[in-house]
């Protein structure tokens, strides 16, 4: 029972921290962030396992974490409200070529991030070639170029 409770507690704490850290934290993953994620994994290991390093305990924890994740995905599918709460919704950063500065400030996105996405996704050179930019639930920025917007 202890293992299941530990697994559930760690799952919920991580879910809450990652969600409240903001989407940009996950999107702007640098090499250092990757190392940080490894440290987080190492830190949670002790809390998950306690003093029991047996294979059975590890198996119970893995099954618990997977079960919780499956249950959470089912719940999100069933309840749109819960999905919105846990995953958020896409945020329009640029509409009709006009950047929404207030939204960008709150979402911690600047023009350089949008231009980077525009260059990497469509090879766009300038901001005036961007029709729409959307901060997706995953934390990535989707770009719709002006021509593509007109065609769509």
């Amino acid at each position, binding site marked *: 029972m202890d293992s299941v409770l530990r697994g559930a507690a760690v799952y919920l704490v991580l879910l809450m*921290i990652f969600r*409240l*850290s*903001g989407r940009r934290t996950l999107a702007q993953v640098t090499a250092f962030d990757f190392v940080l994620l490894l440290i987080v994994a190492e830190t949670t290991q002790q809390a998950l396992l*306690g*003093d029991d390093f047996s294979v059975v305990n590890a198996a119970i924890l893995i099954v618990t974490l997977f079960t919780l994740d499956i249950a959470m995905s*089912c719940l999100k*599918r*069933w*309840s*749109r409200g819960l*999905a*919105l709460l846990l995953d*958020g*919704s*896409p*945020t*329009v950063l640029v*509409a*009709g070529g006009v950047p929404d500065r207030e939204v960008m400030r*709150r*979402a911690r996105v600047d023009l350089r991030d949008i231009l980077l996405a525009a260059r990497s996704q469509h090879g766009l050179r300038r901001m005036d070639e961007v029709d*729409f930019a*959307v901060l997706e639930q995953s934390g990535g920025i989707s770009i*719709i170029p002006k021509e593509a*917007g007109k065609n*769509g």
Partner: protein
Amino acid sequence: MIDRSASSPPIRSDGLQIDEHRSLQVFHWRLERVAWGTFLAIVVAALLGLTGGEGRLARNTLDHGSAQAEVPAVARWQEPDNMTVSFDAAGPHVIRFGPGLAEWFDVASVTPRPVHESATSEGLRLEVEAAGGTVHLSIRPRSPGLARYDLEIDGATVSARTLIIP
């Protein structure tokens, strides 16, 4: 199971089809800022010792006149901790912990070794020489909660409290 994800997102006046919940997003941004403040508060609390371990507020010092006891103000469940009793004068001395101590903590060891030790329903009684002037008790919290216990040193009693966090 009802699949509520099947409904298609609305099309905005500018032609973009997207399910954007701006009011919820604004609420979430506010919540994020509150969470960041909470994260900072947790870090500061940890630095001060309010989450157990080391720190300025991690320990309570109880003054018994000729002796001082230092007990953890905040301890972590199942994590080894320690208590110390320092004497101004040479021994022998008698230290008695009330039954509350045994209820909340396992006492792993006492250093230096007591001359006489007895655990009764009235608590743990230790007779020590305290050659170095200080007696160390290694303890391990048994369960989370607010532990209240009495500490009697050479006849003078004070009450101590330790918050045991999970």
